[in-house]
Each structure stands twice: as C-alpha cells, then as structure tokens.
C-alpha cells in the first residue's frame, strides 16, 4: 500500500485546519490596504466563526434534513480532501496513485450537497445560484483534471504528494512553458471554485448577481460557520495546488521548508486575489463559461506540450 503516515505529513493538514481562516483575513486586509482603507484585523474571520458558532439556529419550514446535511457534507468533504493535499514537498497524510481524481470528486461531493441544500429552501434565488454553481463547476472540472494530468506526465508520478515532491524539489517549475499554462488553468479553477472575482463577487449586495453566496443565504448560526470555514479551507487547499508549482523552496531543512511554505500559502493567494479584486469587476455571467473553456484549453495545450 502506498499510504504512508509520518509525523511530518501531519503538518499540511494541521496548518490547513488552523490557518485557513487567516487567509480570508489577509485577503480582506490587502483589499482594504490597496483601496486606502484600514482593514479589519487579520484575525477577524476567527472572531466571526466564533460568533457564529455560539448562535442558535433558524431553519425554514420548507426544508428537510437535506438542508441541514448540506453544510456538514460540504465541510466534511473539504476536510477529507485536505488529508490528500500535500504542502509543497511535504507529503500529505494519505497518498496513493490517482488520488487527485478522488480529490476532484470530493470537491464535487461537497458541491453536490451545497446545491441540493440550496434547492431545498424552495427559493428561486437559491435555485438560480445553484444552477450557476453546477454549470460552472462542470466546466472547471475537466480543466482541473487535465492540468493535473499534465503535471503527472511531467513528474512521472500520479499522486498529488508525488507530483508536488518532484515539482518543489527540482528546478523552478515555471521555467517550463507547459507549467505556466497549467498554473494559469489551475488559477482560473481556483478563482471559480472559491467564488472570487472575476467569476463571482462575494461582496455584492444583490442576490440576483451572486452565485455561491446566494446558495447559502438561508443558512445561519453554526451551519453558516461550517460553510464559511469550509470555504476558507477550500481556498487553502486549492491554493496549495498553485503554490506547489511556483514555490521553489527546497532548503533541505524540514522546519524551514514548512515555515516558508506556510508564509507563501498565506501571502501568495491572498496577494493575487486581493490584487484582482482591487483592480477588476466581475465578468458578465455569459463570459464566465468562456473563461472556463479557456482554462480547459490551456490545460490541453500544456498536456500536448508534455506529450510531444
């Protein structure tokens, strides 16, 4: 069996679980900083989660157990996915051939339940958000899997831990044009899956224009805490897919590697997302599929480069 458990491989999971909300804090701080405001403290997401956890709950009379299961399965699937996500060259808790397929399908599981939980409310706003989420993710899934296949071809390993071990220990991956394309494709998937600009705007005030936020409109209290925490965790682990490609660190000293990885994991996606959200608006909904198809094409191109 290719599953290995070592004391180091606990660190990707632990850092994901504890540091993921901080990512949101940093993003909000950067956005505020760039627009000349003084942002909320970095730890604000933790305060919010704590506050939500202590609230009581209100459930709609229309809903069934599906509505209550949605946040649980959403978070549970992401937590499980975190078990197979390495951090740079630090292997994940569990790794085996083809684990990246399971990773993609775990994300799909969480999404499936978020969508049906939204439909459970019987509200047309949430139905609308659910419809869009389902549509966009159907287009982003091929892009993600093809991009990871290109990485697999390049590194000769078909498990996430194996791939990123090679990527992070060799020369800087971005010297290869194929990896640049892979990076762009995964970055678009990253923005889509995390419902950020230019695909979705988490801060809009109108239900009609939202995708992810409108789906969870009816959730509150601990359920909302689960959802928000799950979103942070999802951003963290999908961010790892990107950082593993660009992060050239291989000092040979484990604790130094870990520290640098964590710093980059926090600052990298935060700066990128912050800059994008500061500088551009959300795309029109009709444009989003084109963006996602473009991501798919980048993946295909990357694969063709690797296959030749």
């Amino acid at each position, binding site marked *: 069996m290719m599953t290995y458990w070592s004391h180091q491989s606990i660190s990707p999971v632990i850092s994901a679980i504890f540091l993921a909300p901080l990512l949101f804090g940093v993003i909000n701080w950067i956005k505020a900083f760039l627009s000349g405001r003084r942002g909320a403290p970095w730890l604000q997401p933790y305060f919010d989660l704590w506050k939500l956890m202590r609230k009581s709950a209100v459930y709609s009379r229309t809903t069934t157990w599906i509505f209550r299961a949605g946040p649980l399965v959403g978070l549970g699937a992401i937590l499980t996915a975190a078990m197979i996500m390495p951090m740079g060259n630090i292997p994940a808790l569990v790794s085996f051939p083809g*684990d990246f397929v399971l990773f993609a399908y775990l994300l799909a599981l969480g999404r499936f339940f978020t969508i049906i939980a939204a439909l459970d409310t019987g509200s047309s706003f949430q139905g609308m958000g659910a419809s869009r989420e389902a549509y966009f993710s159907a287009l982003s899934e091929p892009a993600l899997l093809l991009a990871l296949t290109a990485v697999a071809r390049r590194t000769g390993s078909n498990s996430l831990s194996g791939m990123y071990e090679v990527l992070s220990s060799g020369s800087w991956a971005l010297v290869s044009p194929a990896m640049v394309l892979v990076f762009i494709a995964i970055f678009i998937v990253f923005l889509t899956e995390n419902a950020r600009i230019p695909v979705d705007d988490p801060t809009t005030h109108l239900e009609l224009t939202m995708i992810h936020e409108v789906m969870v409109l009816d959730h509150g209290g601990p359920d909302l805490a689960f959802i928000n925490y799950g979103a942070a965790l999802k951003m963290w682990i999908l961010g790892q897919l990107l950082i593993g490609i660009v992060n050239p660190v291989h000092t040979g000293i484990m604790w130094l590697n870990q520290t640098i990885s964590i710093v980059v994991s926090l600052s990298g996606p935060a700066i990128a997302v912050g800059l994008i959200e500061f500088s551009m608006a959300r795309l029109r909904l009709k444009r989003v599929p084109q963006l996602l198809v473009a991501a798919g094409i980048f993946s295909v191109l990357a694969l063709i480069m690797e296959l030749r």
Partner: protein
Amino acid sequence: MIVFLLSVIIIVASGFAALVTRRSNSLSTFLGVGGVCAGSLIGLIPTFNVLIHGSRLSLHLPWHFAWGSFFVEIDPLSSFFLIPVFGVSILTAVYGAGYLQHYRQTHLLGVHWFFFNLLVAGMAMVAVAGNGVLFLISWEVMSLAPFFLVTFHSDQSKVQHAGWVYLVATHLGAIFLLVFFLLMGVNSGSMDFDHFNPSGYHHLSLLFLLAVIGFGSKSGFIPFHVWLPEAHPAAPSHVSALMSGVMIKMGIYGLFRSLVLLGVPSVGWGYVFIGIGLISGIAGVTFALAQHDLKRLLAYHSVENIGIISIGIGIGMLGLSWDNPVLVVMGMGGALLHVLNHSLFKSLLFLGAGSVQHASGTLEIEHMGGLLKRMPITGMTFLVGAAAICGLPPLNGFISEFLIYQGSVYGSMFLEGATVGAMPAVIAGLALIGGLAAICFTKAFGIVFLGTARREKGVSVRESRLSMKIPMLILSALCLLCGLLGADILKTAAPVLNMVTMNRFLDAIPLELIKAANSLRSVTWVFAGLILILTGLIFFRKWLLSKRYVQEGVTWDCGYIRPTSRMQYTASSFVQPVTGFFRNILQTRNIVSPPHGLFPTKVSLTTKTPDVFEKKFYSPLFEGTKRILFGLRWIQQGRIQLYIAYIVITLIILLIWKVR
C-alpha cells in the same frame, strides 16, 4: 450445472403457472414472483461457485436442430454477468409485486409475470449459451418478452409507439447478430462457441463491426440508443429497472464474449470503442439534461453509463493490442465493475422513479416538488442512487470510474507517440460527463424531492408500500457496500480478465490487479475517513445546538409578501445555462405564449427536446423506406385469385430451380 438448469426451469415453469392461473391476480403474482425469487436464489449458487473458484461448469447435450446443440457453460465471464441478472431480478420482482397491486383490478397480472419470468430466464440463458443457435434463441426470448412488458399500459398510444420502436430497434440489432453468428459458424463448421476459430477468417473487422452494431443496439450505443428513451418511460418501473439495470448489460456481455471469441483486436477497434463511449457518454448526459420526464432522463443516463463502460472496454482493448496489462486491468476491470455498479444504482433510480410516479401520478418533473417530506425512504434511496451515478464518494459509482480514470492517467503518463491523444480525451470526457451528471441529478433530486409541491396533487402524496421500499433500501445499501469493498470485488474479476485476454498475461494480471486493488483500498480508507469526519461533525453540531433555541421560520424571500410554490426555480430554468451551451446539439423547441394586454391572464412556456438522432436520421430513413415500399403496393390487389397465382408461380419457380 444441473442446479443452474433447475433454476431456469423453476423460473420458466413458474411463469407458465402464472399464465395458467391468470384469473386470480394474487395467486399468479405469488407464483410468478416466488418463482423468480426461488429460481434466482438457486441460480446464484453455481454462479458464485464459478466466480470464486475460477472454474467452469458445462453441459453438452445433443439437440436435433439445424446446427444447434444444447451446449451451456458457466465460465467466469458468464458468472460475472449472472450476478446482476439474478440479484436484480429478485429485487425488481419483489418491487413489482407491490407496484402492480395498483392495477390488480384492471390488468391480468399473470400474463405480465409470464413474460417477466421469460425475460429473466432468457437473460440467464444468454449468459450461459455456448452455441450460436441456442444463443440467438435465448436472445430472441430476452428481446421479445420486454415488448409485452413495455406495453403493459397498451391502451395508451404513446406506449404502443414505444413498444413498436423497441421491437423494431431490437430486431434490427438481432439481424446483425444473426449474420455475425452465421459467418462465424460457416467459417468454423460448427456453431459451438468452443469450436469457433476466427484465425482463418480474413474479415475479422467485419465480424467486429457486426458484433458492435448488434450488441451495441441492445446496450444503447449512440446512434442505436433511440429505443431507450421511448421504452423506459412507457414500461412499468420494475421492468424499466430490470431492462436498464440488467438487460442492456447483456449487450455488453455479448461484446465481451465476442472479444473472447474473436481474439486480439487490431488497435483501431480500441479507438472505436473509446470514440463510441465518449460520444455516448457526453451526448447521453447532455440529452438527459434537457428532459423533464423523470424516466426519460434516467433512460438517457443509461446511454451515458453504457458509454463509460465502452470507454473502459476501449482502454482495455488498446492494452490488449499493445501488450500492456496495466491498461487491460484498469480498462476492462473498470468496465466490469461499472457493469455491476450501474446495475445497482440504475435499477435503484428506476424503482425510485416508479414510486414517485405511483404516488404523484406523473413523471413530469416540473409538476413535482417537496416529495422528500412525504416519501422519506424513497427520497433517501433516490439520493443514494443519484450520488452513486454521479460517481461521488463514498459510493460504488466512484470506484469503477476511478479505475477507468487511472487507466487513462497511466496511459497519458507513460505512453509515447501520437496515439496517446485518446487518453487525455478520456480524462476530459469523463470529467465533463461527471460534471454534467451532477447537474442533471441535482436537478432531478432537487426539483422532485425538495422545495414545495408545485401542483395541488403533490400534497396528498403518500410513501409507497413496504414491498417497494425494501428493494430500494437493499439496493442503496449495496451501493454503499460496493463502494467500500471495491478492492475485493475487483479481485474477483481476475478469472474474467484472464479469459478476456485469452490467458496472455497470466502472470501480469494478478500483479496489476493487486496494485489496482491497493489503490482502491486507499480510496476506501479515505472513504472511511470521510464517513468518520461526517459522523463527528453531526455530533459536533448536535452538541453546539443542544442547549440552544432552534427556531423554524420561512425561507428568506427578500421581503416579498406572498411567495407561492410556483415561484420556485424549475427544472428547465435550472439547466437552462447548460442547455443553452449545447443548444446546437439539443435543438430544444420552445413553445411560448407570451403575455398579452394590460392584464395578462394566461402565459405558458413548453420546452421539448426530441431525440436528434430519431428526428434527423431514423424518421427520414423509415419514411423513405415506407415511400419506396409503397411503390410496390400494386402487387397487393386484395383479390384471392391473384394471391393463388403468386403462390403457384413461386412454386413453379422453386420446382424449376430444384430440378435444374
């Protein structure tokens, strides 16, 4: 072998008994269902015996019939397909007993059970037939019986039409099989499978083509799929479940069998299978998206899943022709597992659809809503089936798709040359199919079972009776179980894989199987982790909310005062972005009557997505045939003297031909 024949005899005999006692619906139902259950249970004994020991059981009796001999043999391949035949038959029969209760005043159920039992026996005989003639006879029984099952509601014109489409499609396919077996028989001088010797035959590709069309039309490869979306909605649900879960797999069995009979295919055939699979998979799920008849939607998903199976076979065939056991294990193994898995979750979904139809009196998704509250068991089991068919962890659908993914990832990683392109195409195709299937089943489950009832009728809906619930519960438990035991099930496929590869990789296949099983075992560990985490979260939230006030309220409606159930999102609007994306393929027609005047009273929108292949290909084809044949109508004058003259002329011609 005697035990197996005994089981078939029990099934057939009980069918006849049901026919004889048709005056009493309760007695004939008891006899029919009891016979299927008893016969299938007995039949499972030799089946498991063969599969576990990797042995063969056979019986060869002389039979005074042109080229025929009563040669039956259970080898590992047969036994792998016999498991769903017997297993699903039991469950659908029990369900059917409950389902048909509703019609005991209006229909003769004994006739129905007679044909049901014939179908089960026919499928069992197809799987074990070792002689071409016997195979074709069993095939005909298996193909004809469903016609009478599909036309259960024979008073509806739609059902009659569906019955005819099915009959024509299945016989067009059977013609190709007849030619296939005749060519094989003529070439090798015997119709017994073990005497078939294709090595001397030059047109191997022709034989393959005949097999692909003949068996493919039974399985529902695009473009031979048109009968599925017609026949499945028309048939009673337990029949749809059996047909979609098991009968169409006999086409896949036939393809595997012809692989055994014909030997190593040329590389091109692997690509053909992958191509057919990708087209069937993507087009199948795309058409499914646009349907709002629940069973029609499920029928198109059968096309999709047959496509996935075909992709697996294609990868395995490439492995065979490239001498690559890894591809064989991943591709063929994945295809075999998907056969088993699909037979579980598809019959589960059809049974669920039947319960829904029973309760709400309609299959129109747009009219439903909120059924989960009234039918908790049906809803929960349907959800399990929906998640399984989308390949979501921790259910069985993921296991088989994972193997096929792994095969194509392996191919993309290690193969060289221009031919590798098929492998990434498979990955992209499977990912797209998975994503679209998720849209389709969030729609199907969400609109049917969640929200509130869209029509008044939905309010009075009741959960179905126990005999319908138990098969659904068993099937959903099996979906979970097969998800967790994927590695062990894959290992039982070893003798089957050895057969299909003609023992060419006797050393390599067990080795690769262990590797594949190990990664499946890791998947299972993650599944276990997932289940553990979910359980933990459930208790965590329970603890959080234990001392607090949990309120009930209305769904947030943006301050609107009088929301109605009609304002919910509909199935059509849910999939509209996607169907818009595929509008060139789907060619959905919108029939709109827009609002008029200052105070519009009546507004309506109807969307229809007919099958493009039927509309653009088959309808013109059959219309053209009809026109040509109409040109021959002058022969038919309706005068008896003329017909006698025809007969005499024919006889004279035959006489001259014979004497000459």
